[in-house]
Structures are given as structure tokens and as C-alpha cells.
């Protein structure tokens, strides 16, 4: 198994790990961390499989996509954190009402 596929599988692992935490944990900060881990997983899949080119240089299009993705992720994280803090200020806890089930 080459480097590319190894890292892609690590990416799948991160995605599923993050998704599990997202579903199971109730605290909003943990959910936000889980999202970031999931995002990193998807980016790993994108970039790792881009390394399968025949010559030395990897495919640059997925690299550009991942940079876009990282910026989108930080924007979403900033918004999510602010929402979480406003919610905590209103309700006293950083969790959604009625958490614990899907």
C-alpha cells in the first residue's frame, strides 16, 4: 500500500472518529472540535489521493480545494463558537436543549 492510500485511510478514520464524537457528545465545544477533525479527515483524503500522479509533482487542484476548505472551516468555526457563547450566556450551559438523542 502506498503513501497515498495510507493517508487517505487515515483521513477516513478521522472523519468517522469526528462523526462519532459529533453524534455522541453533547457539549457544543466538543462538537466544534469534532467538526474540525472531520474536516481535516476529508482534506487528507483529497490531498493524499492527489499524490498518485506518475511524475514527482502531485495534482495541484485538490491542494487549492483544501486551502479553500480550510478557510471555509475557520469561518464556520468562528461563527459556531460565537453562537455557542451567546447560547451559553442565555441558557447557562453550552449544550443544545434536549441533547442526548439524534
Amino acid at each position, binding site marked *: 500500500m502506498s503513501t497515498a492510500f495510507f493517508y487517505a485511510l487515515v483521513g477516513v478514520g478521522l472523519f468517522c472518529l469526528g462523526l462519532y464524537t459529533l453524534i455522541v457528545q453533547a457539549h*457544543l465545544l466538543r462538537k466544534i472540535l469534532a467538526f474540525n477533525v472531520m*474536516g481535516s479527515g*476529508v482534506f487528507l483524503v*483529497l490531498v493524499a489521493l492527489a499524490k498518485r500522479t506518475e511524475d514527482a509533482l502531485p495534482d495541484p487542484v485538490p491542494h487549492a480545494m483544501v486551502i*479553500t476548505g480550510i478557510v471555509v472551516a475557520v469561518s464556520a468555526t468562528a461563527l*459556531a463558537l460565537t*453562537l*455557542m457563547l451567546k447560547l451559553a450566556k*442565555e441558557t447557562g450551559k453550552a449544550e443544545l436543549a434536549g441533547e442526548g438523542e439524534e
Partner: protein
Amino acid sequence: MAAIFLEIPWAVVLILLPLSGAMACFLWPAVAKSVGLVTVSMLALSVAGLVWQVMEYGVYRHAVGGWGAPLGIDLYADGLSLLMLAMTALVGLAVSIYATGYFEQPHAARFWPLWLLLLAALNALFLAADIFNLYVTLELMGLAAVALSALSGSRDALGGAMRYLLATLLGSLAYLFGVALLYHGFGSVDMAILGQRLEATPIVWAALALMTTGLALKTALFPFHFWLPPAHASAPAPVSAVLSALVVKASFYILLRLWLEIFGPLGVEGVETLLGLLGAAAVLWGSVQALRQTRLKLLVAYSTVAQIGYLFLAFPLAAGSGITAWNAVAYLALSHALAKAAMFLVAGNLLRFGGHDRIADLDRVVQRLPLTVTAFALAGVSIMGLPPSGGFIGKWLLLEAALQQGRWDLAVVMMLGGLLAAGYVFKVLGFAFTQAGVPHESKTVPASMEWAALLLAVAAIVLGFLAAPLLALVGIGAPFGISEVAP
């Protein structure tokens, strides 16, 4: 003069104009309202221009940057995109007029940039031909929608917005994973090229699963609907209208496009059946829940869950019915957008009027807000699927497709859904005539708010008379493929 009018790249204008408008509103918040209204009016004109252009020249494809797919990104406008763009422009215009009366400073200064960015995202989404570009527009739309939902700052609004944010981010991420798999499987992110290169390999099944699940979550298909009622009910009324009318349709549009261009030809009956089943569950469950609600906005939100189910009923019917099922979807999406937006604007009017939206306490509003109640009644006609209305045409086409193939189960579900819809619409109308137990102090509702709701509802009814030209428009570019079965 007409020649120049036809040569302007209206598709590009549709994207750049709201972006500029949003920035202008942000830089000069004092004039946000006027700038916003002017921008939205010009958007409506641009959509008209694009429709004219496509009717003259056929489908519009613009290679951004001059590179062309697969290296560059393409913009693409066929009949289906035009329908969605026109829906966005119409609902957008009505909601903008409504918003001028609804929001005061400082809320107005926050609303307009976010709203214009949401419009830009919607237009860019409906014009996109590239699945990664769709991801970026999805995120832009999702974040704008969340920000607009949380605008009122109340505890319910913040909770609803947070739930919405989590659902939308999860949906986008699953979708992006699918994009990654498709790109690495077939070397392009352009939908037309992918449609040509696709073969039934495990990578495609994985991408199909991921993207369908992600988009179904964003469209609030049962059982992923849990985030919709709190978010749509606690948002400000014009925002709820936009969320139910436009935003959920956008992710559905993407799912539809992926289906038509990429996944459909693979022969995925299992997934079609599943989607149809979930759609049926959504229709029944959503309608029953709507009947049980005591607050108007929650009732309307659950009605959205039910109506979305109708859209998914077309998937199992599409293979055998030619384009009838997909035409039904187009009609249903458009009429639902108009009718549901009208209903939410009505709810906003009632909220402004009485300070609450409890259905049982609607204090003889039929006398005091006749325009508003008329709007609700007309919108209700479309939602129930009674003639003459757009909803009737849509449901008729869908029923026809179901009966053609002997799908009595789906036909029964549609009938039941219509009955239940009648139930909750008449429940609201009934209370509009009765006197409340405790009289409430009433505030005046600006004329712009009442008229905006009424005009949208009337449009939903007028749609019932426009079947032939509308379906001809949708057919430009054959978005639904060539029908194998003669209708």
C-alpha cells in the same frame, strides 16, 4: 437596444450584483435599506433578462476565466436553473419589500448585507455546473442562513440557529467527501464531464451515499428533519420565509442535478425506493405534526417538512413516467416556495399585530387584517393542492405519474397528505374568525408587509394557470433528459 440587452451576461450579473450590494450595505449601513431594495429589484430584472436570453439562444454556458471545464469552472443555465432563479427573484423581491417594513435599525443594518449575500449564494448555486463550486456556494448559503436565523437574538432563535448550523455543516462535509471521491475517481469536478465518464464502481456508490445523505440532511428529509422546525419557527418572519421557500430547495436542487446528470443513469432503484419511502414518511409525519401544533410558525414549519416529502416522492416514479414526475417536482418546488413564503409572512404579520402567534388566540383577525387572512387562505389552497393553484398542478402531475405506474401506495399517501393539509389550514382559518378568550392590544401592520404576503399568495394561485408556458420554460436544455415513455 434590444440586441445590447440580449448580449449582457445576465448570469454573471446575477452573482456579482448581490455581492456588490452586500458590500455596499456593509460599508454604508445608513442607506442599507434603499441599496438592498434597489439591488433586489435589479436582480429581478436580470433574471428576466436571462430568461429572455436563454429563450433566444438556448442554454447558456459561461466558461469562467476562459479556461473551460475541466480545468476551469463553468456557469450553466438551462430551464431548471431558470425556474429556480426566477423563484429566488420573486420570493426575494417580496421578502425584501416585507423586510423594509419589518426591520428597524439596528437590525436592518445587520439584515441587509447578510440577506444580499444569501441571494448571491443562491444565484451562484443555481448557475453552477461544477460540484466543488457548489460546495463553496452551499457553505456561503448555509452560513448566511444561520446568521439570519439568529438575528433576533432570543434564546429560541439562538438554539434553533445552532442546531441548524450543526446540521448544515455536517451536510456540507459529507457532500465534500463525496466530491473528493468523485474527483479522484474520474478526474474532474464538472458535472457534464462526470456524467460522461461515470461507471458503476465502489467509489461511485460511496460518493452517492455520502452526497445523498449530506444533501438529504440539508433538505430536512425525514428522519433528518429535526433541525428545521426550531430554526424556521424562531427566526424572524422574512427569514423563515426565505429558509422554507428557497434555502431547502437549493440543497434539493443539487440533489436533483446530481441525480439527473451523474447518478441517475446508473440504475439505482434501491436508493430511489428509499428516498420515496422517506418522502412518504415525511408527508405523513410532517402533516400530522403540523395538525398538533399550537403556534402558527411551528405549524407552518412542519408543513414545510411535509411538502418536502412530496418532492422526494418523484424519485421512485421518475424512471417509468418520463418527465412527468420531474415536471411535477419543478412545479411543486415553485408553488411551495411562493405559498410557504406567503404563509410565513402572514405569521409575521399576525405576530406583529397581536404580539403572539398562538393559533387559538387569533382574535377575529379576519376582520382586522383581511388582506393577511386572504393571503393565508390563498396560500393554503396551493398547499392543499386544490384547483386553481400551482400546488394543484404539481400534485396532479405527480398523481398522474403514480397512477400511470400503478403505484397506488404513493397515490394514497398524496391523498392523505392533501387531507391533512386541509386539516391544518382550516384549523388556522377557523380560529381567524373566532374571538380570543382574552382580548389583546393590537399594533398596526405596515401595508408593505400585508401586500407582500398577499402578492406571493396570489402568485401561487396564478401559477395554476401558467402550466404550459412554465413547463415549456423548464424544458429548455432538456434538464430531465429525453422521456422514454410517451406521457
